[in-house]
């Protein structure tokens, strides 16, 4: 059907959004200024845990330009509600998780450094900041707890009085008895304790929000850096501020990256919107980067024990995982489902492991809340799986690639039901593994290792074969698992009288290039040129409803909604054409932009049908409404399951501990691809974030709960000279459970790469007896390990 090869599905079309971004004409939230706008500065707790004894507003109000100061007490008095958590998890004994209140400004007690205490509003940002510096807050400090193993000990400081031992929930999943039985009969059990380090998402655009209120109409508007505008409207309007949705507009304009951290409903959004209502003036807040470090939800932060049972041939018999998952001080919007539903349901990985059992305890600590970050739960799963597979391979003397191959789900076994709820629709793990091993010349590695050794370097190679579940819903499954929302997507396709098309999507683009990819898709489906297709997203007043973008759901769920709406447009067009061509509707086919009577040369072009729909002079008015505008909601049948193999080769300098990545290859299966250029870009970005986690990044707190890595001076972001050019390729097996055949590529890099890097480092150091290296494998950490092992050997 591809009459538009240069823009159709599969073409690397250059992005239409780039012109505005490249010329400084993007419209990010902080670029917006409303007439009469005031500025907000949030006063944040310097303590990890303290009682707010008193707040004296007077000195702040005396600062020139300061208009108002609001505190948590003001919010409570005004009946402001609590920021809700979107997912209910029950403990193993059936009791619901502990869900503490989260008032946007903390009324009595602060629970992490950066917790919101008050807001100072002034004519300029500097004046608001000056006012904030003068605000008289008296705290009485409480003991804080930061590390999870400490937090669950009896006598530990209590983050919430209602959560004994700081436990939010104690969840289990899978077949405990089956796993115990399998472990008894096993030939070998590999066991490992590991940490998945806490990360700060660090989208380059800091979060920002502008609240506005129109006294004349009673309407509120919130401009915000969100991946998820409709859900913000729902959560903030209905649960926090009690504003009917019809009176609240949420706009997420150009957004400078998200990686999950902009999915959630944040306190500042509620604060500026509420304060705008009180003062009847627009109020803008934009985070400083240092503020982002202590107020954007963090990612990962697991402490895990994993055990894998194998038979004598290396076949996996059973897997047991036990994890402590940090929630931070409050429950962020999706926090509770990350270490459970999004994590444990993938424990089969790409393997035929017949029985699996997971125990996950979610823990409150005096730290910034933790939530989804690129991959959300799945990188944690892949890390523990791909590490334990390597440990098992090493202990049993089997090549890691061979051990993976022996346990892969066979290519003819799809659809494949895993023991942990998910059913994989399609995949071919062998081919991507072959591609990656070939590309990196796995067979020739030992020669390269020997050559490096002659230069005094340790060289290692690490393989990681991952799978992820993308395209989140289906709603019924999500509901059964505790989700408090449906996870379908909506689309509207509006055909204008002249045949141009506007598509409204409930997904949100913050770098993924939807304006290009979706236009390509619609151009292909509708056979109209891309130039006459507009894509609209990110404004609740324009788009009827939506669930936003995360978990690579935009194309698999949002794209399908668009496809369904396009089908409806075509079907209505057929009815109009049948009337105009005096044919039966069943005889009309739509091809190459024309409605044609099958087997004849009688046809009407798409544009003619559009015009007729809006100028209905000759129109079957009794049976058809004028207009050519259709919408659809799509709730997917299943998740999609992208997979692949990433291989990393490293060289370590024993004198400095510096790990140099000398080669990195990724071979992935993303299902059908709309725009390969954009897909490659997504993979590159993900790999960079994964390598960042493996080698450089880690959010560190001291014992008292102060963030030691609270700015770019101390938190090591990957820079251009830390990385190399990645070699990426795909072998795409179409998804079965959606008609587009698409799977999703956004997280793959961040999921597949960390274990590849760590496996490579452990491989390089294995001759010293090293079994595991924690992330981030910084030069200091690696040097220390080498130094200690060499010292122990010498002794």
């Amino acid at each position, binding site marked *: 059907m591809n009459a538009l090869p240069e823009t159709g599905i599969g073409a690397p079309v*250059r*992005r239409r*959004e*780039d*012109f*505005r*971004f*490249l*010329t*400084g*004409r*993007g419209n*990010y939230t*902080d*670029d917006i200024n409303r007439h009469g706008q005031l500025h907000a500065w949030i006063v944040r707790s310097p303590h990890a845990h303290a009682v707010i004894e008193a707040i004296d507003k007077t000195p702040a109000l005396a600062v020139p330009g300061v208009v108002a100061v609001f505190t948590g007490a003001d919010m409570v008095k005004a009946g402001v509600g609590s920021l809700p958590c979107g997912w209910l998890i029950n403990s193993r004994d059936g009791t619901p998780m502990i869900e503490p209140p989260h008032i946007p400004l903390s009324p009595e007690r602060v629970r992490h450094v950066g917790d919101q205490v008050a807001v100072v509003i002034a004519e300029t940002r*500097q004046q608001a900041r000056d006012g904030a510096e003068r605000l008289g807050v008296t705290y009485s400090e409480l003991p804080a707890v930061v590390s999870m193993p400490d937090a669950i000990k009896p006598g530990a400081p209590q983050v919430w009085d209602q959560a004994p031992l700081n436990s939010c929930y104690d969840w289990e999943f899978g077949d405990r008895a089956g796993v115990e039985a399998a472990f008894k009969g096993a030939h070998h059990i590999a066991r490992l304790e590991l940490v998945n380090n806490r990360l700060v998402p*660090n*989208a*380059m*655009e*800091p979060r920002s929000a502008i609240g506005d209120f129109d006294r004349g109409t009673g309407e509120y508007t919130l401009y915000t850096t969100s991946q998820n505008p409709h859900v913000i409207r729902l959560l903030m309007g209905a649960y926090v501020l009690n504003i009917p949705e019809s009176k609240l507009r949420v706009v997420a304009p*150009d*957004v*400078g*990256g998200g*990686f999950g951290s902009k999915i959630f409903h944040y306190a500042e959004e509620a604060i500026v919107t509420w304060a705008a209502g009180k003062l009847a003036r627009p109020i803008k807040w*934009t985070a*400083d*980067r*240092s503020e982002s470090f202590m107020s954007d939800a963090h990612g990962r932060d697991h402490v895990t024990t994993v055990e894998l049972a194998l038979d004598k041939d290396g076949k996996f018999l059973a897997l047991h995982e036990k994890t402590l998952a940090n929630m931070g001080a409050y429950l962020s919007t999706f926090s509770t489902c990350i270490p459970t539903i999004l994590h444990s349901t993938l424990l089969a990985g790409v393997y035929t492991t017949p029985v699996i059992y997971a125990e996950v305890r979610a823990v409150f600590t005096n730290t910034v809340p933790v939530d989804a970050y690129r991959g959300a739960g799945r990188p944690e799963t892949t890390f523990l799986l791909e590490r334990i597979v390597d440990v098992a391979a090493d202990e049993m003397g089997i090549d890691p690639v061979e051990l993976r191959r022996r346990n892969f789900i066979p290519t003819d076994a799809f659809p494949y039901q895993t023991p942990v709820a998910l059913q994989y629709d399609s995949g071919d793990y062998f081919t991507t593994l072959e591609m990656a091993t070939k590309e990196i010349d796995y067979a020739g590695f030992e020669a390269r290792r020997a050559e490096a050794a002659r230069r005094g370097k340790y060289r290692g190679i690490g393989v990681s074969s991952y799978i992820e579940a993308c395209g989140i819903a289906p709603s019924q499954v999500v509901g059964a698992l505790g989700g408090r929302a449906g996870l379908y997507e909506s689309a509207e396709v509006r055909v204008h009288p002249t045949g141009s098309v506007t598509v409204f999507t409930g997904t949100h683009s*913050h*770098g*993924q*290039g939807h304006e290009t990819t979706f236009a390509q898709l619609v151009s292909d489906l509708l056979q109209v040129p891309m130039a006459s297709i507009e894509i609209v997203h990110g404004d609740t007043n324009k788009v009827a409803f939506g669930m936003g973008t995360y978990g690579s759901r935009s194309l698999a769920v949002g794209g399908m909604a668009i496809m369904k709406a396009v089908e409806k447009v075509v079907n209505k067009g057929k009815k109009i054409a049948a009337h105009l061509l005096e044919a039966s509707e069943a005889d009309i086919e739509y091809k190459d932009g024309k409605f044609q009577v099958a087997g004849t040369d009688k046809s009407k072009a798409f544009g003619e049908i559009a015009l007729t729909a809006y100028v209905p002079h000759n129109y079957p008015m009794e049976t058809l409404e004028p207009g050519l505008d259709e919408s659809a909601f799509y709730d997917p049948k299943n998740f999609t399951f992208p997979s692949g193999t990433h291989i990393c080769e490293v060289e370590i300098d024993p004198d400095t501990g510096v790990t140099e990545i000398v080669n990195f290859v990724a071979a992935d299966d993303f299902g059908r691809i709309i725009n390969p*250029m*954009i897909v*490659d*870009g*997504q993979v*590159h*970005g*993900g*790999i*960079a*974030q994964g390598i960042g986690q493996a080698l450089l990044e880690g959010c560190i707190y001291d014992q008292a709960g102060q963030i030691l890595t609270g*700015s*770019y*001076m101390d938190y090591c*972001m*990957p*820079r*251009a*000279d830390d*990385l190399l*050019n*990645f070699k990426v390729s795909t072998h795409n097996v179409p998804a079965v459970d959606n008609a587009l055949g698409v799977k999703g590529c956004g997280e793959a*890099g961040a999921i597949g790469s960390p274990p590849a890097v760590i496996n490579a480092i452990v491989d390089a150091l294995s001759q010293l007896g090293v079994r595991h290296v924690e992330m981030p494998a910084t030069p200091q950490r690696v040097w220390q390990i080498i130094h200690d092992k060499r010292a122990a050997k010498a002794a």
Partner: protein
Amino acid sequence: MASTVTMTVNGKSVTGAVEARTLLVHFLRETLGLTGTHVGCDTSQCGACVVHVDGRSIKSCTILAVQCAETEVTTIEGLATEDTLHPMQEAFRENHGLQCGFCTPGMVMSAVDLAKNNPDPTEHEVREWLEGNLCRCTGYHNIVKSVIAGAKSMRG
């Protein structure tokens, strides 16, 4: 405390009132409404704010507006004429050197300065030069490609 500062921005002479503490980036964004220059950090680490002052790339969050009196400032908005892209901008578009676009103005301004002084940079030189510009989206792979291609077309 307010004083007046005059400078040439994108070829036009501009005068504005600033506080002594006003940084160039805030003068550009807030007083002049040139929002293409971005603020990504408060520690001069990210490079989202890079502009040219008297032809040299500089982080506009590290310099006071009053220090730029009587200078020639070029921002991303002034790099190209209305509808044609500068060769470096074109190279970023062609090589998919941007995703969310937030780091992009700073990247492009840094890259143009590099190419002026080193018309044929190696991959290694590009990576070293971009050390002061953070991008969270692209993994730098395509940015590096873009800069090399952009430098080539600037050579003509």
